[in-house]
């Protein structure tokens, strides 16, 4: 991670290169957790960097840039999920259900049953609840940072996280 900084003096090209090295992989992982689709996640994160390049003159600060990248990724992931759900409404339900819980062959033997159940339950949560939990439990963001990334109030973050966690708790109790 880059250290917190004031104005960097970087050109937009330089900023993309440096912020790519520092955050690209993490942002792709974040988007993948929100979308469960690595290919789409990479496209969304690439989009975010291209957009950040265009806005760099206004940002010119690594902290602001990271917040911008994160918020862009969250917003675009939400849009992609919305689009996917529209498409899925026309798909055969049984296929959709089976695919939602199918472990990735890429994952190989690393997948564990409990983790798969947890991730499947997370995937079934409303988008906002899922975002709040991923940003808190994967990205380790503070409540204020989560609110900024999601574009909502801290109270809403609390509410989404609390409801999401309650749903996960119920699901895991059923599992055990």
């Amino acid at each position: 991670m880059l250290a917190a900084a004031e104005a960097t003096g970087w050109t937009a090209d330089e900023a993309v290169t440096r912020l790519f090295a520092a955050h690209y992989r993490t942002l792709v992982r974040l988007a993948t957790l929100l979308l469960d689709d690595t290919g789409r996640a990479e496209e969304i994160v690439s989009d975010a960097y291209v957009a950040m390049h265009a806005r760099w003159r206004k940002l010119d600060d690594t902290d602001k840039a990271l917040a911008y990248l994160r918020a862009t990724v969250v917003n675009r992931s939400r849009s992609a999920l919305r689009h996917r759900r529209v498409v899925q409404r026309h798909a055969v339900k049984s296929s959709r259900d089976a695919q939602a819980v199918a472990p990735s062959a890429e994952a190989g033997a690393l997948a564990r049953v409990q983790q798969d159940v947890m991730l499947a339950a997370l995937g079934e949560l409303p988008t906002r609840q899922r975002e709040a939990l991923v940003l808190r439990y994967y990205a380790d963001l503070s409540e204020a940072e989560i609110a900024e990334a999601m574009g909502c109030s801290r109270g809403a973050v609390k509410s989404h996280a609390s409801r999401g966690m309650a749903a996960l708790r119920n699901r895991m109790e059923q599992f055990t």
Partner: protein
Amino acid sequence: MTGHPAPDSGASRGDTPDVGAQLRNALEARASRVDIAPDALGDIRRRIAARRARWWMFPALRSRGVTMISISSALAAGVAAVTIGFASCTPATGPTPIPPAGSGGPTATNSSPCACDAPQFTANVPVYYIGANDLLYREFHRIPVGDGSTAARVKAAIVQMLDGRTAYDHNYVSQWPASASVRNVSVSGGVATVDLHGATVNGFDPAGNRAALQQLIWTATAFTGGTGVRLLFDGQPRSTLWASKLPVAGVLHRAPAVDALAPVWVIDPQQNAVSGTSVTINLAGIVFEGTIQLRVRSSAGKVVVSRTVQLTVGAPAQGTATVHVTLQPGTYTVEAYAVSMRDSSKIGPDTHTFTVR
């Protein structure tokens, strides 16, 4: 991103410690399996360059004294023109050589010519090829993927895979018959059904034939949620394939990675890639204790980087590692290999040549 104390959000803090820990573990495990395509930075740079080029196509935007209103109008016109450009259809051309990820070429999503009303997408898809000892290597190919659906991506990847000449590394091949083509691909419930044409006759080579089948299975199941492949030949299932009588009935699954994959991969830079002076080398391997050797040689053969690299895990799992090096402009060869405990010979060397500019 991990290892920090839980944020003091108060939302659910303390009320569900076990579920919180389980969730954190599950997210970290899932995130650790995310495979980043190589040359993502190059892709972003090309998209930025394309964006700049579009900007400079409209001189009115750059002239002095242009009011904000006229700028807005021109921008709107520019966006409209670009949008129309993307949406208008040009006749589909035949297959063209796909350049390596680092060498330019079409990259922007929706930027490829389309032959239909639906938007055309371009994506980085994993394609497996057969290397030395009939073991598999993976390359990421940025190719048109039709409507961007999972089935379209799988089909595009298999079309690439069937023609071994598409491999960036010329040491990689496909062992499918040259006449093989894809009729159709569908995906349902994590299983890809692949209908092939002209694929039922192949030379008798049991080991090579097994590798070819795994080549297709690994390529076709590389999508998120992929678990298996069902093969059809001209629309019909078969019980066995080729003279080596490989069983191909029902759903086929990947062989264990330790049996199917080459022991060492240089993932990035890919063969013939072009990078800046700051070079990221991504490696993967299924080797004892996860230790591999890395060498980077200049075009004159001088070793400019030599180090032992520790992968994330040792065999039988596939570990990964990322190494950052700074190189002067020029042509280089990166080589990674494991060392035999028995006689110190090289095991599974993988080499790629790339250019630094």
